[in-house]
């Protein structure tokens, strides 16, 4: 059984419908540690050693956040800059994260169509998530296909409920190693495997 750490970054959770629901689902799953960065470190002061210990104790790390200007909210970036130190996450003796898995859970305002190759944004979501993918590589981690919610502004209540159920199932399957490895490596979004 894998231990999952969700690192959640949302500066205005009170204004988000989808993430509130996704968080609820995530907290229900046994074996998941839910870590809300903006509520823990509102002044951006991140205790590096404590965070590193947390990483050590988990097998699958998830970054859950809305996509802001094609990246993550500022505090998660600060967290990455500080916590993923040389000789902890990378470098000659930085092997702590090696073999662990990293996954992004993101919501986008734009619909799925605009993140197609042919859409007006010219880049697919996996291309946009390249910095996270690359980070995983440098740390020796497997980067899993992302869990994505597109078109977040226009979601109906039923859509939101659907996504949160899907998310719960994804987390359980990851925890219990139920995804066949070949499917994991070929999928664009992990949503498609449920």
């Amino acid at each position, binding site marked *: 059984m894998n231990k999952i750490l969700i690192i959640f970054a949302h*500066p*205005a*959770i*009170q*204004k*988000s419908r989808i993430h509130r629901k996704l968080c609820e689902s995530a907290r229900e799953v046994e074996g998941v540690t839910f870590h809300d960065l*903006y*509520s*823990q470190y*509102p*002044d951006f002061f991140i205790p590096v050693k404590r965070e590193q210990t947390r990483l050590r104790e988990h097998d699958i790390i998830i970054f859950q956040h809305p996509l802001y200007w094609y990246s993550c909210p500022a505090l998660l970036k600060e967290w990455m800059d500080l916590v993923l130190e040389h000789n902890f996450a990378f470098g000659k003796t930085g092997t702590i994260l090696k073999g662990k898995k990293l996954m992004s859970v993101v919501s986008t*305002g*734009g*619909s799925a*169509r*605009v993140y197609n190759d042919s859409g*007006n944004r010219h880049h697919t979501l996996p291309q946009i998530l390249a910095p996270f993918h690359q980070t995983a590589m440098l740390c020796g981690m497997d980067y899993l296909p992302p869990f994505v919610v597109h*078109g977040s*502004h*226009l979601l109906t209540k039923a859509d939101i409920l659907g996504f949160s159920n899907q998310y719960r199932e994804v987390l359980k399957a990851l925890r219990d190693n139920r995804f066949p490895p070949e499917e994991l490596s070929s999928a664009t979004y992990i949503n498609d495997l449920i």
Partner: protein
Amino acid sequence: MEVPDFFLQAVIYLLAAVITVPLAKKLGLGSVLGYLLAGVIIGPYILGWVGSETEKVMHFAEFGIVLMLFLVGLEMQPSLLWKSRHSIFGMGGFQVFLTTLILAGGGLLIGYPLYQSLAAGLILSLSSTAIVLQTLSEKGLLKNSGGRAAFSVLLFQDVAVFPILALLPILALLGGITMESVAMQDQVTGFAALPRLFQLVLILGVGLAVIIDGRFIARHIFRFVASSGMREVFTASALLLVIGSAWFTAKIGLSPALGTFIAGVVLAENEYRHELETNIEPFKGLLLGLFFISIGVSINFELFFSHPLRITFLVALLITLKFIALWATGKLFGLKHGRQVLFALALAQAGEFGFVLVSFSNKLGIFNPEFSSMVIIIIIMSMALTPLLLIINEKLVRPYYIRRTNKKIPDKVTSTGNIILAGFGRFGLVAGRLLMANGFKVTILDSNPANVEILRKYGFKLFYGDVTRPEMLEAAGVKDARLLLLTMAEYDEALKIAAYLKKQYPNLKIAARARDNIHEFEFYKLGVKMVQRETFNSAVELGSRSLHYLGFSRYQAYRAGLIFKHHENEIMHELYEHWLESENRYIEETRRFSEELTEILKTERDFSIHDTDCAWDVTSIRKEAREKPE
């Protein structure tokens, strides 16, 4: 229409108080002296407007003391009273005993017979609850250990009146006074006529009833009365409670003041406590004022001027002997650092109980009428002198003890770092530790010897000395300092130093702790730009934590605080401009805060804080997305 005399008298009393009391307070003499002076002025020897009714007025006004003790009781938690039982009985008992002994000894030496000396000693050993409590509370000294001890002793004296009343007839017998006059004493009725055991049961029963009533029943009665919504009915019920308990304790043969005090203590934890206080307070104030005026009126200057030297000598002797006895008592019971002097000066007069006891002794034949009026004038004059004695304490004794505790030779200051920190107390300690934790060498100066000693124990290197003196700072190397932090709590002195140093060393960088906006502006004006108000950030912090408690997410609450802080900074610039324009206006200290507040609120209208935080608000994006799907 015939105008009753009463109106004229009321006008005279009120007018005298309204004129003299504020004057006395302005002159720093306190309200008690003001009332006394008012009494002297309208009394028979100066203006002669009042006089004949004074005794009646005084009896009526004595009720103010009863109300005062009720209020003092309300302020006192029962547990606190229980804790001070040793000082009440031990200290109070010892004080009465020792004072009586010394005074009686004095009387014997002057040549009065033993029984008269003892009676006078007992009577004069009691102090004036009214004057002492009023003066001490006005000066805020009741919380001081000397003031608390004085209160305990006064409480004991309230109880001691009754044994003294019982002792006086025995003294009369000792003096060989005929039995007939004493015999009238035996015609006791009421409570005292009951058998002893029954008396005890009755007292215990009443005590229990009072406690049960105060704890469980009074609340319901007050709630019922308060629910009527009639303010005056609540006042009436408060007065009913106080007068009722006074009447009742008097009926069972105890001091009414004591009774209401206990009633107050029992109600101290009642939810209507505050309501009771505000209702009784004005009555107490007026009646006490009236009481003090009537004392002023009744000073018998005719008698005084017939034996001026003798009476002055006796008053001085009384105060001196009482002072000695009280000082010894205070010392014995562990009062230190000038508190024993405060205690002794506060209680060095004779009290209003004396009036009753003297007239009783007169009836018993212990004192003849001439002697009685002599004792009365001594009592009254010693009472009138009390506020003056306490002013002496304030102006001479306290400064002396403060100087004595501070009388330590200033350290020879040498520079231990090129950053100087002046004032290492509540504020400087934090700022200084932050600098030192980051490896900076700091030369620390502090003017509180106790503080210096403690900090030295914990390994801080700091110099003791008066940080407000430029020589100290110069010895610490202010000339070549990279930075001077003025973190002391002597706000005005800090400004003076800053002004001096800015002139001497224009390039010196100064960081200053400010008390409030205006203090901060004064630093700005001197060219000191690095100023921090001592409470502002903490207040914002607590407010922001409250927001989180009230449902904001932690980050939202944090940002709200941050926004507020920056918003306030903007306002500060505006305020500074205002202040520069209006600086020459004289602002009284008490009005300073409200003036400041008005300015802040006025300026705030121009800057709206309410729509500055639109961050991460997706409402408008959502709206657009709905209108024009991609």
